[in-house]
């Protein structure tokens, strides 16, 4: 029998970061949870990934890190498309709160596109979507992210007839 211990949400949080996360959790109240049932078996589903690591193709417009340096409560609210065949050599990491070296070595640490394509090949999922997405997850002012970028991502998910979305925060 495999025994799974509960994940410790605070293992990697120290000092003010730990206080901040505990406080932010205490600010939230339960609310109605949106629910879209899986309409068909996973092996018939198209799957897309979203990373909040601030990944952009080296050939794409960089995320503007100066936005956050000028106003540390905010960050560039835009998003980038990451095609399914993207490798670590193709991208740059713009999130200012993480060590970017690991993702810069292996994109699959944050956006496991290659693993998703393997799950397609093995028949575990129907297909890996053509496009995947990234934005910078840190902000205390998420309005523009939620009002502008996420609706645009949703439009692209619909265009590519995606069924399932796996979100990977950093």
């Amino acid at each position, binding site marked *: 029998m495999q025994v799974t211990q509960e994940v410790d949400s605070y293992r990697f949080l120290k000092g003010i970061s730990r206080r901040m996360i505990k406080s932010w959790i205490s600010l939230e109240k339960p609310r109605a949870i949106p629910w*879209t049932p899986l309409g068909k078996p996973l092996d018939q589903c198209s799957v897309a990934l979203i990373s909040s690591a601030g990944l952009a193709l080296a050939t794409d417009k960089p995320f503007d890190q100066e936005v956050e340096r000028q106003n540390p409560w905010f960050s560039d609210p835009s998003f980038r498309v990451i095609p399914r065949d993207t490798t670590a050599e193709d991208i740059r990491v713009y999130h200012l709160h993480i060590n970017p070296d*690991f993702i810069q070595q292996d994109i699959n640490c944050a956006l496991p596109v290659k693993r998703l394509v393997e799950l397609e090949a093995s028949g575990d999922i129907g297909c890996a979507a053509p496009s995947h997405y990234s934005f910078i997850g840190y902000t205390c002012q998420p309005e523009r992210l*939620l009002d502008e970028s996420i609706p645009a991502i949703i439009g692209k998910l619909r265009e590519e007839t995606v069924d*399932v979305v796996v979100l990977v925060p950093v």
Partner: protein
Amino acid sequence: MGLVQRQIEAAGFSTITLSNIPDLTAAVSVPRIAAIEYPFGLTAGLPGDDAGQRAALGATLAALQEMSTPGSVRHLPFALPEAMSDLNIHPPESPPIAKYIARHPWYLPNLLRREVPYQAAS
């Protein structure tokens, strides 16, 4: 990420967040969580660990397929080995908000309450 997940689920997609702070993700009432004890910047696995990354992503998708109740949380049996606990997960320079709070410690309560000071508004 939880707010983003809610919005995408409400738009008609089945979603799951692979979270290393499941308590925070769950606090915003999201439909499905796969919890994993991997460090920041490495939520989906260690660099070069193809098998470990595949296991984590596969378990996340399997959890999504099996969950039938809004607010479900699956704790995945993967964690950073204790022997690797000294992995440097810190950015090359302090994040702007950390430098700002060091210079303006009286704004720490604002950060804890997630209340942006008026003069810092975007």
